[in-house]
């Protein structure tokens, strides 16, 4: 307040305007709200603005540690912020980047701190150049019982994060995993998500490396949205994914890098399935796509990329139909997403569909 009055006086002296009616100072709560959008590094910088600002950053419920040129003492930086913040305030949202230079102990301490301060959202971005990515933090993560969102992003192409066989995160609603390896103790099959009893959204990217198990079972009663993006990585065998997700409503499959595909199967009829999107950009046998479509024949809105359709229609034209094409009893609309490959024209799409007696509703 003292600050505010001083400012008004000096402004009046200089400008001679009446500033009385203007609200000239944002309350601490609003300043904190603004700071939640800044990187933590800059939020901490604000402590030198004035005495009033000195401690505001300590009440932040979002901390975002990203790599910035110039921060040589990254480990010191993270632990300094964690130990100097106001410990009576919950930490809801943590974004932590892990580098080669990050001490495994630091990562573990951050997760321990988060577990004690009711962490709800964790984004862990791992930028690692060595073979073995430390995974000792995982059991500590299981202590974060309030965790509802987890994004593990591993950007290294050489190594992947070894997941424990079972993820004990009962409050978790959203899980994004990229570049992880599914491993198992005894047999070839792993079922990592069955203990995530609140999980509704699962996104898997570039996972299933060659050390991975052969069969991944995605079984969950709560799951409604599933997205698989270029799942298979440098394999000598075709890995299998078995879906056991009776409440699935949205499914997306994108395949753009690996020329291999996983073998997909499903143990239930997916009675509430609404939308399916398939975007395949690599050369695979069209019977694989027919098989995928067969799994999702209960769908209401089907979106195919033009490349996916190209492979599919080529097969139909040849007439060598060895597999029974799926019958979509509940289908309400088909959408075709044109990609830049120009393999297929809109006219060809219409003609292709005429031959099977159905015209797409929308070509985008």
């Amino acid at each position: 307040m003292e600050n505010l009055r001083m400012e008004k006086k000096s402004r009046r002296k200089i400008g001679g305007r009446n500033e009385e009616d203007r609200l000239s100072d944002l309350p601490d709560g609003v300043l904190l709200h603004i700071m939640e959008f800044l990187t933590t590094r800059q939020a901490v910088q604000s402590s030198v603005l004035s005495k009033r600002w000195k401690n505001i950053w300590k009440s932040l419920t979002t901390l975002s540690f990203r790599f910035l040129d110039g921060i040589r003492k990254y480990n010191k930086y993270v632990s300094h912020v964690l130990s100097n913040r106001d410990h009576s305030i919950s930490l809801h949202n943590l974004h932590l980047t892990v580098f080669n230079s990050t001490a495994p102990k630091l990562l573990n301490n951050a997760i321990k701190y988060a577990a004690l301060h009711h962490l709800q959202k964790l984004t862990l971005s791992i930028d690692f150049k060595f073979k073995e990515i430390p995974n000792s933090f995982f059991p500590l993560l299981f202590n974060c019982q309030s965790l509802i969102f987890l994004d593990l992003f591993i950007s290294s192409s050489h190594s992947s994060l070894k997941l424990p066989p079972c993820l004990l995160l009962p409050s978790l609603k959203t899980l994004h995993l990229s570049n992880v390896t599914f491993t198992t103790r005894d047999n070839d099959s792993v079922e990592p998500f069955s203990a995530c009893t609140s999980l509704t959204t699962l996104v898997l990217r570039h996972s299933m490396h060659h050390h991975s198990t052969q069969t991944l079972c995605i079984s969950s009663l709560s799951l409604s949205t599933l997205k698989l993006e270029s799942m298979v990585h440098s394999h000598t065998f075709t890995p299998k994914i078995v879906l056991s997700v009776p409440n699935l409503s949205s499914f997306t499959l994108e395949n753009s890098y690996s020329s291999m595909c996983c073998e997909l199967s499903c143990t239930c009829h997916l009675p509430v399935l609404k939308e399916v999107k398939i975007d395949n950009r690599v050369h695979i046998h069209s019977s694989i796509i027919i098989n995928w479509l067969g799994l999702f024949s209960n769908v209401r809105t089907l979106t195919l990329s033009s490349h996916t359709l190209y492979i599919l229609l080529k097969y139909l034209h040849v007439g060598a139909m060895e597999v029974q094409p799926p019958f979509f009893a509940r289908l309400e609309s088909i959408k075709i997403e044109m990609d830049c490959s120009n393999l297929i024209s809109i006219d060809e799409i219409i003609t292709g569909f005429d031959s099977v007696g159905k015209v797409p509703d929308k070509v985008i």
Partner: protein
Amino acid sequence: MGERGEEWEAVMLRKAEEEESKAVKKVKLVTSDGVTMEVEISTVKEMETIQAFMNATDTDNSIIFPLPKVSSHILSRIMELMSGEYDQELVKRLSHEELKEICMVANYLNMKTLLHLTASAIANLIQNKSVEFVRHFFNIINDFTPEEEVQLRKTHEWAFEGVDED
């Protein structure tokens, strides 16, 4: 005939009631510079502070709500943002001063969407800017002694590494 007449009366009564309730669905906001702005009740729904007041008073007459801290200029800017469904482009056109005031009013009237939008717009403006820029932006008078400031910068030295001073 009598029965029908009663029915007719009931219809008219209901119509009159409806009309009356329609008339109530306006709120008069009186700004700091004495301008009265009449707004739809739906507009006020997002202003939780006013909404709470209305729920508490439960009056039949049209409501007059004084806003001694909000100028007519800022209130009309807020109305523009609301009718434009909080378009980012509209936010970009605001001056720094307008943006700060709208953010403050959004907080005062407890308008969550508007507060979120303006707070993130302000954060974008000051992201990666020097301490001096931020001081100027918020009209902050530095009340640290030079020694205190040096000490504080030393305490958080990693936060200032690689930051260019003006």
